[in-house]
């Protein structure tokens, strides 16, 4: 069924009984052209673009839980493309362009809201670094705008501009950045892929990768063996565990990142703000809750829950930026497992096994990349060669000395 104003009206008069399930719940077939492990945003987007861009519809997406239960439903919903390095920037800009046309493409309201993203700076040196980043963005054709203190103050007068230690001196703004309803992204891609014939198989955990003569022939799952010509891994925080089934050791550690929502408030924050003195980012959802997050906890974890020390740390950073937050109550917090790579940048590449492909290492920036990740991974799966925007995101880049390290921290995943 195509969603439209007319369909809402028609079903409104028919006691809402005309709606059908947004996707099927098929039993797995014996064999698929392509199997994608992981029914998160990236896996579902990959299936959608495989079907739409490359005409490959004999595809299965295997999800061990239910779709939307992993990181695609656990992030702070921010989209942006304000990256510095040439290996990253064109990819994230492709992603932002796909976000801009996503709802028409999927016929699904993902509530894409280009409300702008502002990165604050607090020192002259930080301002210079943001000028450099803004110039790099503009050289790549991305919008970037430097705001002075007065301009930021006129937009958000409630921030602590005269903080003794970290006064706010301005910000770098990307107006095309913003937020997206994250669950709707999973549902929209699932529905669109399903419509083109992709089988989305939930409650189906991959337990082994079967190989013959150095090639993958299929996967053992909790619903039995499923054969495939090509296998794509998009398992986010569990990438290392799935790759281990094919005897691959990845440049990845799994870490826990927490996110938070406050009680509902009247509208007061109409953009996304990123604190420059600590690690803190915040926006206000359409329901009124403040959605915010900070650093990863800093230790390897598969637990999907974090520690109180970080809860306190995030709250401190938030209050340092917006003192009024001290009177706001936390409503909920949760954790997601991040596939932290060794340089903070992702991997979309072939593997040493001929028909096994890898999409991993998203650190905690995977949500904004969802459309481009799916688009480029589908390109790689269909054609066997990387999309032009992902030529730097290779699995062997560390060995060759071509890391894409935005922050210059080196191979220390808990710092990225």
């Amino acid at each position, binding site marked *: 069924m195509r969603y439209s104003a007319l369909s809402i009206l028609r079903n409104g008069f028919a006691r809402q009984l005309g709606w059908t399930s947004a996707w099927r719940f098929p039993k797995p077939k014996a064999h698929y052209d392509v199997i994608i492990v992981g029914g998160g945003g990236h896996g579902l987007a990959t299936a959608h673009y495989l079907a739409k861009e490359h005409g490959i519809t004999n595809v299965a997406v295997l999800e061990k839980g239910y779709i939307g239960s992993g990181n695609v439903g656990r992030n702070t919903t921010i989209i942006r493309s304000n990256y510095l390095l040439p290996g990253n920037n064109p990819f994230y800009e492709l992603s932002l362009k796909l976000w801009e046309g996503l709802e028409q493409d999927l016929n699904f309201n993902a509530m894409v809201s280009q409300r702008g993203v502002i990165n604050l700076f607090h020192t002259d040196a930080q301002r210079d670094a943001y000028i450099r980043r803004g110039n790099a963005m503009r050289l790549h054709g991305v919008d970037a705008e430097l705001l002075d203190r007065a301009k930021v103050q006129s937009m958000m007068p409630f921030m602590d501009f005269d903080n003794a230690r970290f006064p706010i001196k301005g910000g770098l703004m990307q107006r095309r950045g913003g937020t997206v309803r994250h669950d709707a992204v999973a549902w929209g891609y699932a529905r669109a892929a399903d419509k083109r014939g992709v089988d989305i198989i939930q409650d189906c955990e991959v337990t082994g990768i079967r190989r013959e003569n150095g090639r993958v022939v299929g996967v053992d799952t909790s619903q039995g063996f499923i054969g495939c010509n090509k296998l794509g891994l998009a398992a986010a925080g*569990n990438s*290392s*565990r799935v790759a*281990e089934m094919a005897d691959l*050791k*990845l*440049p*990845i*550690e*799994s870490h826990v990142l927490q996110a938070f929502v406050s009680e509902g408030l009247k509208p007061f924050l109409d953009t996304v703000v990123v604190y420059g003195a600590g690690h803190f980012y915040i926006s206000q959802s359409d329901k009124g809750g403040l959605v915010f997050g900070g650093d990863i906890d*800093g*230790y*390897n*974890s*598969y*637990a999907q829950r974090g*520690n109180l*020390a970080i809860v306190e740390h995030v709250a401190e950073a938030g209050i340092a930026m917006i003192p009024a937050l001290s009177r706001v109550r936390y409503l909920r917090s949760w954790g997601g497992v991040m596939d932290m790579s*060794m340089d903070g940048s992702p991997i979309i590449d072939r593997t040493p096994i001929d028909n096994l492909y890898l999409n991993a290492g998203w650190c905690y920036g995977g949500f904004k990349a969802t459309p481009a990740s799916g688009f480029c991974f589908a390109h790689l799966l269909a054609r066997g060669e990387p999309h032009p925007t992902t030529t730097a995101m290779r699995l062997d880049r*560390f*060995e060759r000395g071509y890391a894409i390290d935005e922050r210059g921290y080196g*191979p*220390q*995943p*808990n710092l990225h």
Partner: protein
Amino acid sequence: MASLITCPHCGQRPKEEFAIKGAALARPAPDAPQGEWYDYVFLRTNPRGRYEEYWHHVSGCRRWLVVTRDTASHAVEDCRDAAERAPT
């Protein structure tokens, strides 16, 4: 994770006193082949379960420790001085 960590030198101390470095891997010899160094610097087994990590007791004895911990349950099984660790 447990809020209290038993440091072999300081006894039970709050977890916030410690800084976590990451995987407690055995460092290759300086003249080891490049592949071995690549493995040590960049590749991780990243298990779900038992894991050995280097922790630094920053606000205590300032010794480097090896903590054995479960990455799924966060339970801390063991905490030893790094110097006492048997070479692997």
